[in-house]
């Protein structure tokens, strides 16, 4: 279910083996196409970890091509909801580009920094952030179980969890709503 993509390796394999910086749109588009190709061959539901730890620079244009267009397309496709993404190995300067792109598209993605801390980047209201944090702490949760933690009615939490699911931030399985990080 979980697949790891080392973006630095994809860059060297698909564009130029001398490159370690993700800059320019053609470079970003080539890397994204390779990621899309890999993801399209995975059984769903799938979780793809996009790892930037071997990437030097990530400029805004390339972040748009790699992350922005990838997530935008995944969320727009009918079956896209079954393709989930986490971003790892992100340094501060990567984060700035990813944040700008997520804001532009009105999307959000869960990111692990290079130091190992997780946070959500992009457009997400405070209530959904709280719900997401509790799901992460529990690993898997149903609305009724979260109601006590968050002191909110179960139907409100159900709606909140569904919105998180539609945005690709939690996985919905028969057992409940599952934190993406718990699948690593």
């Amino acid at each position: 279910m979980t697949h790891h993509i080392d973006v630095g390796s994809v860059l060297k394999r698909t564009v130029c083996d001398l490159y370690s910086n993700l800059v320019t749109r053609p470079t970003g588009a080539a890397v994204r196409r390779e990621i899309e190709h890999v993801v399209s061959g995975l059984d769903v539901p799938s979780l793809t970890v996009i790892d930037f730890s071997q990437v030097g620079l990530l400029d805004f244009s390339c972040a748009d091509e790699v992350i922005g267009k990838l997530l935008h397309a995944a969320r727009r496709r009918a079956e896209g909801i079954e393709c989930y993404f986490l971003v790892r190995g992100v340094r501060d300067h990567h984060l700035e580009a990813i944040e700008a792109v997520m804001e532009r598209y009105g999307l959000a993605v869960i990111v692990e920094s290079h130091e190992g801390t997780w946070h959500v980047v992009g457009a997400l209201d405070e209530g959904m952030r709280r719900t997401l944090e509790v799901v992460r702490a529990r690993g898997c949760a149903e609305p009724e179980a979260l109601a006590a933690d968050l002191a909110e009615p179960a139907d409100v939490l159900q709606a909140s969890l569904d919105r998180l699911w539609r945005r690709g931030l939690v996985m919905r399985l028969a057992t409940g709503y599952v934190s993406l990080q718990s699948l690593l």
Partner: protein
Amino acid sequence: MTTVISVPPSLDDETFEQVIEQLAPLPAEQKILVDARHTRWASPFGLTALLTVAQTRAERAAFAGPETDDTASYWQRAGFYRHAEELFEMHGHVPRGRNDPGESNVLLEITPVAKSDDVHDVVDRIQTRAQAILVHELNLDPQSTMRFAMTLSEVCQNIVEHAGRGGWVAVQSYRYRQRLGRRVVVIAVCDAGVGFRTSLESTPAWKPKDRWDDAMALEDALIRGVSRFRETGRGQGLAGVRRYVGRWDGKLSIRSGTARIAIVPSWDDAVPLAEHLPPFPGAQVQITIPERLEQR
């Protein structure tokens, strides 16, 4: 008959207007001699913009370089002559020697930018030297180095994506006595391509607004993040450049066609939007990042 275009003694983004004023009334077929014999100093903007002058001429322009050895030698080390010899009919002494910037303040010698690979090359080359200059001489945060390279990448990509022809980039560090009395690092990216207005007019289904000119096009691109491409993620590059420049109290100016727009810091007195300038093709971008004083 050849028309002599006099290059001012000190050539930068402001005094380059004197060059443009002389060029503006001339047809492209008019033979010109760009006379820089009495020029003593040139900023990276001045040097890269001089190269674009050659691109604007239908008749191969002639060029006479600085008579002062120091100046000529500096221009040579900055990479100017390597490109000038391909573009101009050279007159007078042409200095020879290594283009390696060595210990000078040339962070990136004048480098052509025409395709995506050129941007990779520029970014790869700038990072090591930028780290040393930005952190140790300009007292900027070490994190600023990567963001500086991101900024450089985005402004270079404007040529690849929008200009329709190649241009040049140069990065230098020097003491900016005239306004600041401190060190600055300056990025200059100049091309003689289609310019912002024509680029935006090429947007599918584009319709002219009530007011539409070079100044409006610059405002659309820099302030409102408009791009000729309609995809959602477009227009972020210049927005990112603005954020970087603002964070480090820098100055950004873009001249295109008959207008120049600027993000002006408190230490500078440029007008935010200059209109009705003499026309010049393409886009000429300058970013100035000053030394930080408070960390001293």
